[in-house]
């Protein structure tokens, strides 16, 4: 790598404490009973200006539709001010911060981070700086922790039609701890190690949410061309791919820039649209003719000195432009490096070269778009090309399904941060701080060891409980059940039953079932039986009322054994067990059965 790469991470961890600023549960479906819709406007900020990222979003003039699932209320709809902060979530964030060696701020100010991509109904995300200046030890040395913030998670995007974006509000408001590292990470493998370590630290609180995207990473990366923030990496393994793909991209752009430079550089003045719709009306390109039929126009522009850098060899400047137009919901774009093609004939391409007044080293592009969109793009495209060729690459990108990073929006500035005036500062009590510091004394790995020994379970089980975010469930079940039994139930028994039945049991249901079984004075035998019933779809009320979960008494077992034996001789214990199972749906202890059977024989 020619330039030294500086890498930092932002690790986001969802908590399962209930939502941060209302009393809704964190769990819920993405199905909603109704929708609401909003438009958002950027507002004049604290410094009298409007944030660049926010203004950028507004130019896209979008309308947002929100599906409202059951685990939402007026707070998520921005129809009620936030309620007081979820103190449990706040305390978990303190524990995480303490574990990462951070200094906890005793008075915490809640801020509004302006985000008008619609992912927050209010147009901002509430975020609080909880702690600063920590560090962790890694195999490649110390990595600084810049900050630990406690945020509310954003809405989940369901679909993006460009002008019309759909979100579901179920995720909005889930507490999210954001841990930001200094740019101390040396390479992609190191990044994975750091992400893992931070995640594990959070998970040892036992309060992290168990879901496919409950832990998400952003990568901050700089190769000397400005900071790039890559968002939305939900699997740790993707961190590596994202870093590799982005460094390759930046090296490629260095080559593109130097190529164009050598040819005499960019003349951004040269970029302007000519309407060639009439000429291409009869073209064989279905993209073009379809666009025209929908009322769009076809615009042509020369790209000075850019022949061969748009798409040729490993050069891919064309993709950078396409990423931009996609943001404006314009899909119809072609450039001369990929033409003839897409149904355009060689003759037509030659004519377009002529109409764009291209020299030998020049390329052209055509855009199929509405008039309004074109007038936006006529400014945005040359501006972006200029930025890229000047290697001013700072921006927000996302890691796409295609395994590469892609343009999302400009980097937001500090102007997007306002105070959250609906909430008083959160003042931590001494007890809250010292309890967090106590928790933080032990490194994450030691906490797992302690867990194993405290509960007398295996190191392996302890570790799995933590990394699968089942620690909280385990601790809660262990307060009622035998700990080893709880661990087996969570890690083996239940997954087996779920797999067999094809149904799932939520943590909440499991907790309620266990409590209900205990309340009826029944034990593990009954619990096993009741899990079966639960997975068959019976309600917990029905299960606890069911006679089928009551274990057979000694007398009942003896009676059955006698009856079975009268009919047919039982050859062995297995046969005996199977026979009893045929005669009753109620649970029994096989060992006890054998004992009784033997005592009867005697």
């Amino acid at each position, binding site marked *: 790598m020619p330039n030294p790469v500086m890498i930092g991470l932002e690790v986001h961890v969802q908590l399962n404490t209930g939502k941060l600023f209302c009393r809704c549960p964190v769990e819920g479906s993405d199905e909603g009973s109704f929708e*609401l819709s909003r438009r958002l406007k950027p507002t004049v900020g604290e410094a009298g200006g409007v944030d660049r990222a926010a203004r950028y979003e507004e130019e896209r003039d979008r309308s947002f539709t929100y599906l409202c699932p059951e685990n939402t209320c007026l707070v998520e709809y921005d129809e009620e001010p936030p309620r007081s902060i979820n103190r449990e979530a706040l305390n978990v964030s303190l524990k995480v911060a303490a574990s990462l060696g951070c200094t906890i701020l005793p008075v915490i*100010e809640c801020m509004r981070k302006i985000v008008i991509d619609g992912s927050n*109904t209010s*147009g901002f995300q509430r975020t609080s700086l909880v702690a600063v200046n920590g560090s962790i030890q890694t195999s490649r040395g110390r990595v600084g922790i810049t900050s630990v913030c406690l945020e509310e998670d954003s809405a989940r995007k369901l679909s993006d039609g460009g002008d019309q974006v759909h979100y579901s509000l179920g995720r909005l408001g889930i507490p999210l701890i954001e841990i930001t590292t200094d740019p101390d990470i040396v390479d992609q493998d190191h990044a994975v190690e750091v992400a893992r370590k931070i995640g594990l630290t959070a998970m040892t609180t036992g309060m992290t949410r168990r879901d496919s995207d409950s832990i998400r990473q952003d990568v901050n990366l700089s190769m000397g061309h400005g900071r790039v923030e890559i968002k939305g990496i939900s699997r740790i393994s993707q961190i590596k791919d994202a870093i590799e793909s982005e460094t390759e991209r930046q090296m490629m752009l260095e080559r593109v820039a130097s190529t164009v430079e050598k040819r005499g550089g960019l003349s951004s003045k040269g970029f302007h649209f000519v309407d060639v719709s009439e000429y291409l009306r009869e073209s064989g390109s279905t993209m073009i003719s379809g666009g025209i039929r929908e009322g769009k126009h076809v615009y042509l522009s020369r790209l000075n000195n850019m022949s061969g850098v748009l798409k040729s060899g490993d050069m891919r400047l064309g993709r950078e432009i396409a990423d931009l137009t996609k943001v404006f919901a314009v899909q119809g774009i072609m450039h001369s490096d990929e033409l003839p093609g897409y149904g355009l004939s060689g003759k037509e391409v030659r004519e377009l070269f002529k109409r764009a007044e291209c020299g030998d080293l020049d390329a052209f592009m055509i855009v199929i778009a509405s008039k309004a969109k074109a007038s936006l793009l006529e400014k945005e495209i040359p501006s972006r090309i200029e930025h890229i060729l000047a290697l001013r690459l700072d921006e927000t990108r996302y890691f796409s399904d295609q395994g590469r990073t892609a343009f999302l929006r400009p980097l937001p500035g500090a102007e997007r*941060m306002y105070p959250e*005036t609906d909430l008083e500062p959160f003042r931590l009590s001494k007890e809250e701080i010292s309890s967090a510091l106590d928790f933080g004394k032990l490194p994450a790995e030691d906490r797992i060891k302690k867990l194993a020994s405290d509960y007398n379970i295996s190191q392996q089980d302890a570790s799995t409980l933590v990394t699968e975010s089942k620690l909280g469930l385990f601790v809660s079940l262990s307060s009622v059940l035998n700990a080893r039994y709880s661990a087996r139930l969570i890690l083996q028994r239940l997954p087996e039953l779920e797999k067999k039945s094809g149904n799932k049991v939520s943590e909440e249901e499991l907790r309620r079932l266990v409590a209900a079984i205990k309340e009826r004075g029944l034990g593990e035998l009954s619990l096993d039986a009741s899990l079966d019933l639960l997975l068959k779809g019976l309600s917990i009320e029905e299960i606890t009322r069911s006679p089928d979960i009551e274990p057979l008494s000694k007398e009942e077992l003896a009676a059955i054994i006698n009856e079975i034996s009268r009919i047919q001789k039982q050859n062995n214990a297995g046969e005996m067990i199977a026979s009893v199972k045929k005669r009753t749906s109620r649970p029994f202890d096989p060992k006890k059965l054998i004992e009784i059977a033997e005592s009867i024989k005697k």
Partner: protein
Amino acid sequence: MDGKEFAEFGSRLRIEHEGQTLDVTFIKRDGEELVFKLTSGYNVRFSLKTVKILEELEKSGSFRNKSIDIATLGTGSRRISLLSTGGTIASKVDYATGAVKPTEDLSFILDSIKDIQDRMTLSAKIIDSILSENMQPENWIRNARLVSKALDHEDAVVLLHGTDTMSYTASALSFMFEKQKGPIILTGSQRSSDRPSSDAFENIEASIRFSLEDIGEVGICMHSSISDGRSTLIRGVRARKMHTTRRDAFRAIESGNIGTISDRKVSLSNDIKRPDEENAFSDKLDTAAGIYYFNPLSSAEDLEAFSRGKKAIVIMATGLGHVSERLLPKIRELTDEGKHFVITSQCLYGRVDLEVYASGRKLLAAGATPLENMLPETALAKSMYVLAHYPDEFGRWMTTNLRGEIAERSLIGGEF
């Protein structure tokens, strides 16, 4: 305290806190604490005792809101006067106190009305800067005079107003204008305009659209749904704020829908009052009135104490308009002394009727005047108007439907 005095809002400072050196922006002092903004944008709050200001890097200055004066806007022939009294709709974060306070800068409305600029000429003016919960009749009178003056010269008035007491003000204005040449539209917002999701933009836009119509009434224009894109204009005397926080908090109680806007298209109801040829305005109101909320703890002594110094008492009674028998002799006595008791219902929806039950007949006999389905807040404003104008025929005027404050027909509506 080592130089902390010089710091003013917006100064860039270098500070030391618990051994760390930080470059920050000074926001404010709050008691024994200082609030700074970090370069990341986060605010931090440090104790005076633990922070040390090392040097001032840059004086405050660039860090100020730019105030844009709007003299006039638009090129159309319809003349609209936009008067701001304050309230959430004209509120901004006050970075000094951290609270939302009235602003005197109306620039935020520029964007939202660009597309109808050629249909009207808007002139904007700040006439007050007050949260509506602090409004008193003297504010009403002062503002009403300004509205009247504006309507003498212009075709419509839009009044920006806090939502808390907006329906009281709208009622008072309704009665003060016996005739009006054009619409007087009050609007406000439930989310302040410094939020990207504020309803202020759309409510003002909708108000201006309604201002283009031939309406001779006082109305309140707000969201009619929690979604953007739909607004409603409600007759001032039939409007009530029915939710503390929702955008669609204002409802026409059983009747009073003047018009609606959906996707920027205005549609008006059939039974609206059209503009008069001229204005007829009176600024006389008698403030010797009050609202008494009847409940099972109410006693004659309680009512008497409340009635002292008042000429008209609006009772929010239960159900059809009933109060306890215990109060009747006192009502009789105070009525004989010249006080007026008018009856509305704490149910808010539906009509009072004192002829159905014995309790009601006794209350009638005690001298109380039932007000059909008039809203309690409207009844208060109307009492003030009638006391000032027709003190000798109070009951007759209170029960005469002057501005649509009584819904003659009880229809099945949206909520009720």
